[in-house]
């Protein structure tokens, strides 16, 4: 049982770390601000979600597990709003200012 949970943690955290790698590669390779914003916010939020999912079995108690999930939800919500705001700023100011 414990071993199964540890295997779940290792695989989910590894998948999350892979998505952070993918986000950085997107940041390096994509040509303009809007596509880089896309790579940054979506991929990194998915990576954070997988890391949180992997850490859930390691949390001691229901309360701390719920706390982890609510941190992830806060990052999701603020990330979605902030992405829209930055994209509006990019469109108003032009990508090179």
């Amino acid at each position: 049982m414990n071993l199964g949970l540890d295997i779940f943690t290792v695989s989910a955290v590894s998948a999350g770390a892979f998505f952070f790698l993918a986000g950085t590669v997107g940041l390096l390779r994509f040509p303009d601000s809007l596509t880089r914003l896309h790579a940054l916010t979506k991929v990194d939020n998915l990576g954070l979600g997988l890391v949180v999912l992997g850490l859930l079995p390691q949390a001691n108690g229901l309360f701390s597990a719920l706390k982890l999930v609510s941190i992830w939800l806060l990052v999701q919500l603020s990330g979605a709003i902030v992405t829209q705001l930055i994209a509006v700023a990019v469109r108003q100011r032009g990508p090179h200012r």
Partner: protein
Amino acid sequence: MASFLVGAAGFVLTMVALGLVVILRRPAEVDHMMAAQLLGTGGVAILLLLAAATETPPIVDVALLLALFAAFAAVAFVRSASDQESKVSKATSGG
């Protein structure tokens, strides 16, 4: 398990640092705002991994505050950007 989690935190830290170096070398201000956003998301992941690895639950609170401040910073940036924009448009329309 703890050493694996510390290793994963180090890997994510490397990725975030690499992304920050790349973003901050670009000239556009919007890219700099993205750097703050990247540090917000990646920093939360690193802190949560370290909290689980060292079994220090207060670090989770630090992660929560980092997520909150990243959101505030982005909203402040967009507000100041739109203020500048409205000043410029007033000046051009007035003159």
